């Protein structure tokens, strides 16, 4: 096999490799060098990371397993420093030499940093890679003020991100209008108004001449002499093709590495693709044209006579929440053009199409971009528009099924990846796809900026007709090991009668034989939920806390929190806890926020004997299960109490302890609406009233503080238990693993839950399944004390003195 080497492990390059693998799977052994220490990730989504909508793991496009499966040798964190054209090999900064028959340069570009005094101070960054993002996120934790230089696409996305991170943000722009290369003055002023209302401050027509500060930046000075204070400067004025290796190795470089219509550089057997390449004097900075280049390049490298690359028209969109904006082609009138416009200042909608000789040559849409794909097709296909209604949709409204039906097959749906409606429909029909995730996987549509996803979803709905299940289609897979969603997983387990974690992964073709920390605990939970009393828990598929029945601390010690039902204890129990704390020299004895005592900093190997001496059940302070039931002192002592809150709390805690739930569940019981047990922010809260109990659900006192909603009011303690059992079981059966009740209720709707629980027979069935499940649990601390095998496997620490066998 011939040797193919690629320099640069970014979006354009790796896509070109994907295309090569499609057309010439066995022709080359492939080696890729990437300067960044990551597999190929979706750079476009860095904006979303900064804005807090996603995390790094979710933006990986090609995980390391992909490289392995395709037998690609990947060197990450390694920079190619030289191409030796004579010897036909490349040399990396770590001294590695790799031979090539064909070489692709896909080195992308770098942020353009203004060459002004102070640009090298700490606190100045570009916006290009994960490192830059991390730097900004870190700054936001320490500092308050940021300045973004550049009011273009990148700058505005960065500014929005910094606002979300809690910083005060000024945007400095040299020109009188924002995004002046993509927008006309009207659209630009609408945009500015919207962003100002979101909290951005603009310093327009300002030229930065110096960055102030000692080591760390403290401010900026402008040409007019004015200054502004800041702790962070993000330069987003543009990008510069990264041509260093090519140039140093004698390849012809202008603004980018110059290539012909087949992506060939001035040197035989060396190609360039992506933002580092210059084609017909244009260097592209958006993925759609780069992906087209990748296809052409793949054909050439595979030795297939294919189409030439003749350049692209690009469309842009800003990824800022609350802003709908699309722009493509020419922006300004020039005497030969005529405009078609709609301007609804009231709703903030503005649309303008620029035409020349009955052809569309430019599009600007603000406030409603539903026409964008259709207009963009008319523009790129150069279709005659005489007699065509330009703006079909009213000012609002999503595309309906009718729009999809009338959409021609060759209409481009995903601009980034060049995927047409026809291609999507064909993939859905030929491969039996039912979810958005699957369509993205098979066609690439939606895999880059994500803007086309609503449209893809509409096409899916239209193509499947009655078989379309909207909620299922939106579901994403439970983790990177599979494409199966939660719903599919639960259904498959039932239909195929799968009974173990291993079997599930096997039968459902997990791409990672033994799963990961996301799917294994989830599968284990679903199996336990489905097979109620028959399932044997897979302890090694639980994460550390649940596996050890103790919460791990940062230094590898554990905490021990015994049950104290309803927060009620006795002097004898307190003495016992005190003695054991002393005997084992427990570093911290603390009242927890859950009305009980926690012993923190316990050595792993001391756990079983401490449990044995305590002789109390585990408080499960570590589990996805019922934690505590907080109570107030209530009618037994309090002058306002109307109900026996302690008794109900203890009954609830004794009944539901140890139950596996999708996420932890906390309860509170108060004996009057003064609510001293904070029942209003618990997963289930009970408030005593004269002659009964109010039951509140979906409260949360943690990350997303949420007051509970009143589920119902009941008269007796029996009714409380019945309703609680049914509610909890319904949560267990329908929530996603790791979805707390507050999120679950918001997703499925309180009214829906109320409706389900209104039916007496349903409540009865739910309670039966609950009771069956509750029967299977064994006290885990006691089990560990009794069972030597468990002790040896989980709690033993082996200490050995060396010097035994030397040579």
């Amino acid at each position, binding site marked *: 096999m011939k040797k193919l080497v690629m320099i640069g492990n970014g979006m354009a390059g790796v896509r070109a490799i994907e295309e090569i693998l499609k057309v010439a799977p066995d022709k080359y052994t492939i080696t890729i060098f990437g300067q960044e220490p990551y597999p190929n990730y979706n750079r476009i989504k860095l904006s979303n990371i900064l804005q807090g909508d996603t995390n790094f793991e979710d933006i990986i496009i090609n995980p390391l397993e992909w490289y392995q499966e395709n037998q690609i040798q990947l060197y990450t964190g390694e920079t190619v420093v030289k191409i030796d054209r004579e010897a036909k090999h490349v040399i990396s900064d770590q001294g590695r030499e790799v031979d090539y028959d064909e070489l692709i340069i896909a080195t992308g570009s770098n942020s353009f940093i203004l060459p002004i005094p102070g640009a090298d101070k700490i606190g100045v960054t570009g916006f290009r890679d994960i490192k830059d993002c991390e730097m900004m996120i870190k700054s936001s934790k320490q500092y308050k003020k940021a300045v973004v230089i550049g009011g273009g696409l990148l700058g505005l996305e960065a500014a929005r991100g910094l606002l979300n991170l809690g910083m005060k943000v000024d945007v400095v722009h040299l020109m009188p209008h924002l995004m002046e290369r993509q927008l006309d003055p009207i659209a630009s002023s609408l945009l500015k108004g919207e962003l100002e209302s979101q909290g951005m401050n603009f310093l327009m027509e300002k030229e930065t001449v110096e960055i102030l500060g000692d080591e760390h930046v403290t401010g900026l000075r402008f040409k007019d002499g004015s200054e502004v204070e800041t702790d962070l400067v993000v330069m987003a004025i543009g990008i510069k093709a990264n041509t260093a290796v090519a140039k140093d190795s004698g390849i012809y470089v202008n603004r980018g590495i110059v290539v012909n219509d087949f992506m060939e550089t001035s040197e035989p057997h060396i190609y360039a693709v992506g933002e580092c390449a210059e084609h017909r004097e244009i260097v592209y900075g958006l993925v759609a044209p780069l992906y087209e280049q990748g296809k052409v390049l793949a054909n050439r490298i595979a030795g297939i006579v294919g189409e030439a690359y003749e350049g692209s028209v690009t469309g842009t969109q800003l990824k800022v929440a609350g802003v709908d904006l699309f722009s493509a082609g020419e922006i300004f009138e020039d005497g030969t053009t005529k405009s078609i416009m709609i301007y609804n200042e009231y709703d903030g909608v503005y649309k303008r199409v620029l035409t020349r000789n009955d052809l569309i040559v430019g599009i600007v849409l603000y406030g409603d971009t539903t026409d964008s794909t259709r207009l963009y097709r008319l523009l790129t296909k150069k279709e005659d528009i005489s007699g065509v209604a330009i703006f079909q949709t009213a000012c609002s409204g999503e595309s309906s099924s009718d729009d999809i039906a009338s959409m021609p097959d060759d209409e481009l749906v995903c601009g980034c990846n060049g995927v047409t409606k026809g291609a999507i429909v064909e993939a859905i029909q030929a491969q039996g796809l039912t979810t958005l995730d699957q369509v993205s996987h098979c066609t690439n549509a939606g895999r880059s900026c994500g803007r086309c996803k609503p449209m893809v979803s509409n096409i899916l709905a239209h193509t499947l007709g009655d078989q379309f299940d909207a909620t299922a289609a939106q579901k994403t897979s439970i983790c990177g090991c599979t494409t199966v969603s939660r719903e599919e997983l639960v259904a498959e387990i039932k239909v195929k009668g799968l009974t173990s974690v291993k079997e599930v992964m096997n039968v459902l073709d997990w791409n990672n034989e033994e799963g990961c920390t996301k799917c294994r605990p989830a599968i284990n939970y679903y199996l336990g939920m489905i097979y109620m009393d028959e399932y044997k828990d897979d302890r090694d*598929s639980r994460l550390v806390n649940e596996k050890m029945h103790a919460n791990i601390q940062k230094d590898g010690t554990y905490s021990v929190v015994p049950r104290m039902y309803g927060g009620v204890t006795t002097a004898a129990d307190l003495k016992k806890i005190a003695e054991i704390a002393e005997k084992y020299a427990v570093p911290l004895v603390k009242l927890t926020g859950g009305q009980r005592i926690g012993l923190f900093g316990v050595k792993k190997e001391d756990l079983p004997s401490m449990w044995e001496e305590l002789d109390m059940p585990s408080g499960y302070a570590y589990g996805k299960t019922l934690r505590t039931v907080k109570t107030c002192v209530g009618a037994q002592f309090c002058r306002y109490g109307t109900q026996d809150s302690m008794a109900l709390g203890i009954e609830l805690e004794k009944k539901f302890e140890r139950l596996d739930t999708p996420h932890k569940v906390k309860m509170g019981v108060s004996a009057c609406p003064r609510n001293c047990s904070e029942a209003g922010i618990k997963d289930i809260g009970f408030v005593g009233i004269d002659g009964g109990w109010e039951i509140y659900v979906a409260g949360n006192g943690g990350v997303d503080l949420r007051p509970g909603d009143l589920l119902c009011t009941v008269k007796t303690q029996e009714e409380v238990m019945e309703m609680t059992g049914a509610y909890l079981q319904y949560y267990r059966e329908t929530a996603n693993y790791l979805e707390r009740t507050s999120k679950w209720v918001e997703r499925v709707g309180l009214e829906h839950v109320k409706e389900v629980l209104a039916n007496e027979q349903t409540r009865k069935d739910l309670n039966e399944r609950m009771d069956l499940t509750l029967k299977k649990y064994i006290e885990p601390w006691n089990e560990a004390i009794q069972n030597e095998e468990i002790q040896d496997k989980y709690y033993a620490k*082996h200490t050995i003195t060396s010097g035994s066998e030397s040579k």
Partner: protein
Amino acid sequence: MIETITRIPVAHYANLKERAGYSIKIDDKEIALFKLSSGEVYALENRSPHPKGGVLSEGLVSGRFVYCPVYDWKISLVDGMVQAPDEGQVRTYSVERKEDILFIVL
């Protein structure tokens, strides 16, 4: 040059349970020993390279990887490399087996 190789007997192979991590203290070194579903055994320093540290022996084992129990980093048992997007490397020790006895080579 003289090299000293020390082989320390640490466990009986048959006693080890699959997909479990064992913490073994040899003098001042703490080592985590893992037996995989395939039967292979690997040994690593029992400390995550995460800046805040933490043990590895209680992590979830999947194939030839262990997930650090405290910060969920994915770490190769074969070469100790931390998998992207995180970075770092854990020290590994070679394990030898004679009959039923496992030795760690220091």
